[in-house]
């Protein structure tokens, strides 16, 4: 139990650092609101860690990933942005998490495909909510740009996650980090 708390805390801290790094990098293509989504890397890695679980606690992993996802959004929202941004980020995260979970379950995608699904659905989810809030289809014009942005950032993050994966595995296998009590 303690071990799990420490691990999740470690992942949460890492996600917050990535959120901070992201807030420092000016990343703009003339369209407001496009981000790299660096913290999603952590969510992706937690989702994929269920692979190396020997016991049948897959669903628990999902709960862990969701917990870290929600906490990092709320915390980084309070640290680096504002209330409105938190709400939008939460809706986007709900969409992307659901999509990534689905992509993960389907088995035919690699970590890159799952990441792309997450990026694209995050953006589309946010746009749909924005449409409902502003009550105009005006913002619909952003959808093509946001889809491209989501695909590109998702693919890049997925690639990074794929490259990081062996290192995480090595850490898991060394010592008894793989066995959780």
């Amino acid at each position, binding site marked *: 139990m303690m071990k799990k708390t420490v691990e999740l805390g470690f992942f949460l801290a890492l996600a917050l650092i990535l959120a901070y790094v992201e807030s420092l990098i000016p990343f703009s293509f003339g369209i407001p609101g496009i981000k790299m989504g660096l913290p999603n890397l952590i969510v992706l890695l937690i989702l994929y860690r269920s692979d190396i679980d020997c016991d049948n606690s897959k669903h628990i992993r999902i709960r862990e990933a969701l917990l870290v996802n929600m906490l990092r959004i709320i915390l980084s929202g309070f640290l680096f942005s504002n209330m409105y941004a938190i709400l939008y980020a939460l809706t986007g995260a709900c969409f992307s998490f659901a999509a990534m979970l689905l992509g993960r379950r389907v088995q*035919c*995608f*690699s970590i*890159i*495909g799952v990441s*792309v*699904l997450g990026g*694209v659905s995050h953006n589309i989810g946010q746009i749909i909510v924005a449409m409902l809030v502003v009550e105009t*289809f*005006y913002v*619909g*014009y952003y*959808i*093509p*740009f946001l*889809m*491209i942005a*989501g*695909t590109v950032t998702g*693919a890049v993050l997925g690639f990074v996650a*794929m490259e990081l994966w062996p290192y995480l595995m090595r850490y898991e296998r060394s010592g008894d980090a793989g066995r959780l009590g």
Partner: protein
Amino acid sequence: MTKADIALIVGCLLAAFLLAVFFMLHRSAGSAVNISRDGIELYRIELEDIRSDEQTQYYLIQSEDSGQDVHIMHFEQYPSLPTGQSYNLFSITDGVVTMEAADCRDQICVRHTPISSDRESIICLPNKLVIEISGESEEQLDGVVG
């Protein structure tokens, strides 16, 4: 990377491209130019009224730095620009709106490409000014996207 990944990426990019083309084809010319500052609409120019004569019309929006007083002046020729006041000068030529000059620091609005289509806008953030082209009717807009 699996085949499904590549299919997904290509599919997403293709869908975005098709959607963009769809939106591009359904662009319609605007019917009026709205000028608003701080979210408050100041002035509305019906393009019908000035489209008949194809001469360029100039509009100068002038405001005191601190005050809320905003003046809009209409010129037939390029006017002399004011000093010591914040201003934006835009022109309308046959339904095309161009930001000609502004006193703002970044000059983003001046460098913005001229706008002519429905719902395009030029925004000058330092002067909190929005020049937006509005279209014909609401139903038509909803029909396009929905």
